């Protein structure tokens, strides 16, 4: 048995023990799990939501769901994949709600008050337009393509962890990523064509 595999099995056993304690209402075990995975969950949530406060809300909601559903975890399944799956679902729910609210809000505002670009922090209009176009193109991808693209490039997850989180095969994850990149190229072609 390799050292890496032994370490992985030791971590899995430790996580299973922590989850067992959480089921008995042990707050300290719950906080240990949070400390161990909070940043990974935050990165996943922020990659999808692109908003700090929304991402923090999603982190809290993810761990509260974990606390309530700890008994549903099946030993042997990668815990991080299971937890990130919860985080992904919570973030997608939040993303959909925010999108509906945003659309409703913007349609009720005068057109001159709606910002042309989503982000405009650099002050450089050309770079800002490109960044805005890129963000909007990612947002308009089909949901599964968008999730794979975001996890791969923003959360920097390897394909095997993406497949665990989305409960799809690695081949399907790679195929969805390829389609996402192809669709982004098509959508951004007019913008890129204007580049000097």
């Amino acid at each position, binding site marked *: 048995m390799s050292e890496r595999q032994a370490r992985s099995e030791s971590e899995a056993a430790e996580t299973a023990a922590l989850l067992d304690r*959480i*089921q*008995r*209402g042990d*707050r300290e075990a*719950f*906080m240990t799990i*949070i*400390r161990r995975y*909070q*940043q990974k969950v*935050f*990165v996943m949530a*922020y*990659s999808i939501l*692109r908003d*700090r406060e929304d*991402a*923090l809300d999603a*982190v*809290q909601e993810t*761990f*509260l769901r974990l*606390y*309530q*559903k*700890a*008994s*549903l975890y099946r030993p042997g399944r990668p815990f991080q994949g299971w937890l990130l799956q919860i985080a992904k679902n919570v973030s997608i729910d939040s993303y959909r709600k925010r999108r509906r609210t945003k659309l409703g809000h913007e349609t009720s505002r005068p057109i001159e008050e709606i910002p042309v670009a989503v982000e405009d922090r650099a002050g450089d209009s050309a770079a800002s337009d*490109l*960044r805005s176009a*890129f963000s909007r193109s990612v947002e308009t991808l089909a949901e599964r393509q968008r999730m794979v693209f975001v996890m791969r*490039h*923003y*959360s*920097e997850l390897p394909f095997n962890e993406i497949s665990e989180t989305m409960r799809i095969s690695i081949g399907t994850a790679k195929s969805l990523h390829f389609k996402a*990149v192809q669709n*982004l*190229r098509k959508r*951004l072609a007019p913008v*890129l064509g204007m*580049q000097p």
Partner: protein
Amino acid sequence: MKHDELDFFLRETEAVRAEIRAAVDSVDWEALPAKIAARAPAGSPETGRAPWTAKIRDGLAPLRMRPVLAGLLGGLVIGAAAASFVLRAPVRRPGAGGRYYASGEFLDRAELEMARRSAVDYLEKSQHMLLDVFESAGGDAGVPASLRVERARDLLQKKKYLNAQLERLQMAKAKALCDQIEALFLELSQLDDGLAADELGKIRGYAEERQLLLKINLVKKELQSGV
């Protein structure tokens, strides 16, 4: 992917990653676990609302944890099913008042078989009676006359019960033969003890003329073979 496109993609995705790193750095990770834990419901999470699959699993938990109880319960269910099957099966069984239930076809066959046996028995006894009459008519010492009369009356009585069976089951040949024999026994039953030899001779002549002994043998064989 062209070089410009690749460069653009790398630049943009790196920009988002830098944005994420900045956001990560801005969070107080030391305080967050306590803040989340404080929001968790008090007590064991197992006491919270369980999903429907968990409820079913919990309901079956006693069976999973107690194989002996599960086996006993399974045995009771199988036993009840087997008892129900046996009691509901449409076979002959004692019913209310000790009566037996059977199919109509079975009853018809049983009645026919009983009629055949009764007819054969009657013909055998009649055969013996006629042989005795033949012997007595030939001068041999037969049974006493009084016993002969008594047997004749007994056979006449049996014939009354046999008539109904033979008619209902359409055993025409046996009935015709039994009717001819009945006429003889009627004569015999009315004779006195001091029966003259010539009167016995007349009865013997009547029987021989109609070949009653031969007919009795043939009909008996037919009935015994079930034709």
